[in-house]
């Protein structure tokens, strides 16, 4: 069972005050820490569990405009056997289709049974790369997978639908699955394990070494403008003892028409 896992290095923005740059078409990320995309972490864990059960090798592939060393070492520490990193500054300007084209070029001649991608990325949230890559490779795909089982050259997957519904889909291997969070509990990568992971094979590529030119990489999506949403709701802090606060709450509820 040879598995390819596509991972993305994403900014950790929960604590960051995001600033839009002067062009209005990008967010300034210079001082923001980066980490593996959460969905990809679950995809990698699923791959490692399959490897532990059925053997085989895991190759991690990542495409990024900036250094991804930490993310790669983390994946290798968790159980991937080798990593291919495609780093090129121009990648920052590319959309999901172009990223899928780059991944396709890297993967098309490799031998694999399964490709796992995260269902979406926490930064742009398009959920497109996985399905586009599968289409380019002409292999079947299943999205939003929250459970999977292998059986005789097929993979039986459980898809997450809305309102708690589930759909069971069976596809022939090789196939691509986009993995939903919660499918497993990702393991921890210790610092020692990350240090040891430096011994594993890391292949570094860029667009030039892959013979990809501008004409191969046309975007389908053009970003018009980034906007910071206007704050429309506000939080009111009520101070005072229980009696005062209760009186104020009742007044507010009356004013808003919730109480008569």
């Amino acid at each position, binding site marked *: 069972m040879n598995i390819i896992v596509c991972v993305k290095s994403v900014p*950790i923005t929960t604590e960051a005050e995001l600033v839009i740059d002067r062009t209005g078409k990008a967010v300034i990320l210079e001082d923001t*820490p980066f*980490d593996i995309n959460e969905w990809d972490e679950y995809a990698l864990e699923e791959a490692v569990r399959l490897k532990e059960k059925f053997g085989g090798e895991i190759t991690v592939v990542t495409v990024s405009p900036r250094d991804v060393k930490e993310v790669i070492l983390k994946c290798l*520490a968790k159980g991937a056997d080798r990593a291919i990193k495609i780093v090129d500054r121009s990648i920052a300007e590319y959309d999901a289709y172009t990223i899928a084209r780059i991944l396709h070029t890297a993967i098309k001649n490799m031998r694999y049974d399964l490709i796992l991608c995260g269902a979406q990325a926490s930064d742009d949230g398009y959920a497109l790369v996985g399905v586009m890559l599968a289409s380019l490779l002409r292999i079947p795909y299943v999205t939003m997978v929250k459970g999977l089982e292998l059986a005789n050259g097929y993979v039986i997957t459980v898809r997450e639908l809305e309102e708690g519904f589930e759909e069971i889909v069976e596809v022939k291997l090789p196939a691509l699955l986009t993995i939903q969070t919660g499918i497993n509990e*990702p*393991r*921890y990568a*210790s610092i*020692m*394990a990350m240090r040891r992971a430096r011994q594993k094979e890391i292949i570094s590529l860029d667009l030039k070494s892959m013979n990809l030119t501008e004409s191969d990489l046309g975007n389908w999506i053009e970003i018009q403008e980034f906007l910071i949403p206007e704050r429309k709701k506000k939080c009111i802090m009520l101070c005072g003892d229980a009696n005062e606060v209760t009186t104020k709450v009742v007044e507010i509820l009356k004013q808003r028409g919730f109480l008569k």
Partner: protein
Amino acid sequence: MRAEGLFGKEELEILKNLNFNLCLQCGKCAASCPMFLRTELNPRTLVRKTLYFTSQLTLYPPFSISEINNVWTCTTCNNCIIYCPRDVKPLNIILGLRAILLERGNVPSTIGEALENIYKFGNPFGISSLKRAEWARGLNIKKASRGSKIDLLYFVGCITSYDNRAQSIARSMVAILKNSEVDFSILGENENCCGNEVYYLGERGLFETIIEKNIERFQQYEVSKIVATCPHCFNVLKNKYKVGDIEILHHTQLLSDLIDKGMMNFSQRLNKKIAFHDPCYLGKHNNIFEEPRKILESIPGVTLLELEHSRRNSLCCGCGGGRMWYKDAGEISRPSEDRVKEAVDIGAEILAVACPLCLSELEDAVKKIGYESKLQVLDIAEVVHKSISAS
């Protein structure tokens, strides 16, 4: 089942280096363990089974991974080491097993998350380091800067820096130092996690990284003395770092010293019955028992009470060694609740602590049992602060 079934060669080496073949199986470690009756953790059987494994002896029933996983419930209170008559140090076996599980990536997710946050943000909460000194805003505290020598560094610690309730310890400490005209600095945004819980969780690689970073800071600012209000920071800085000539103090030691030198100006009477709860990392790990009691007794009006379990026999609050990030599978009775009841039983009005973890855990217990009107939990710095200012 033989050893090779459960541990790898390198993993067995970690365990073989621990000295536990003197164990008599007397069970004092289990009897004194705050988690033994609450969870599946049993230090006595862990010692026995690990000994069988490293000696290649067959064991029935076999040692299982789920049994080893119980090591995450340990609070690292040090009781098992203190009470062992044969110097076996069961805690070290727990730390060895934690290191093995951690290297395999087999860590409870909440603990893994805290460790990742420490690696990425320098604190277990995953909050930006830029917010580390927000508690100090408006207090006019000297922050370490390039080229300045620091005589006394106040190492605030993660919990005291970020936790709303614990921040009051830092503010009280600052008020006391200013009142006694002691010159001190903080590292502010440049302070990083001390690594005590990282060490006791067995994350050796991360611990090395933290030590390296912190020692570099201390050297950069030519620090002569460090005071910590958190005994976890104090313990690791004093016993696990190799800081050369830098003197490491817990705030109870510093305040006790200020009293001796006549530099503490107690201007307010505090007519309260106060019991002191010995935090594990101050008492059981570092034998500091007298200083906190001396401070409390020096405050005009205070009646110092002794809890039934005190000093080396103190009860653990249940938070140390990374356990504050561990989620038990089901509801367990918390050691902190027993402690709070003990304080109320002897008529204490204030339960004084000297640790931000104990503060938060014991205060939660007071709320949970509904003792808010009977017992207040305060850090010793907060108690002293009340007695030096009218506010």
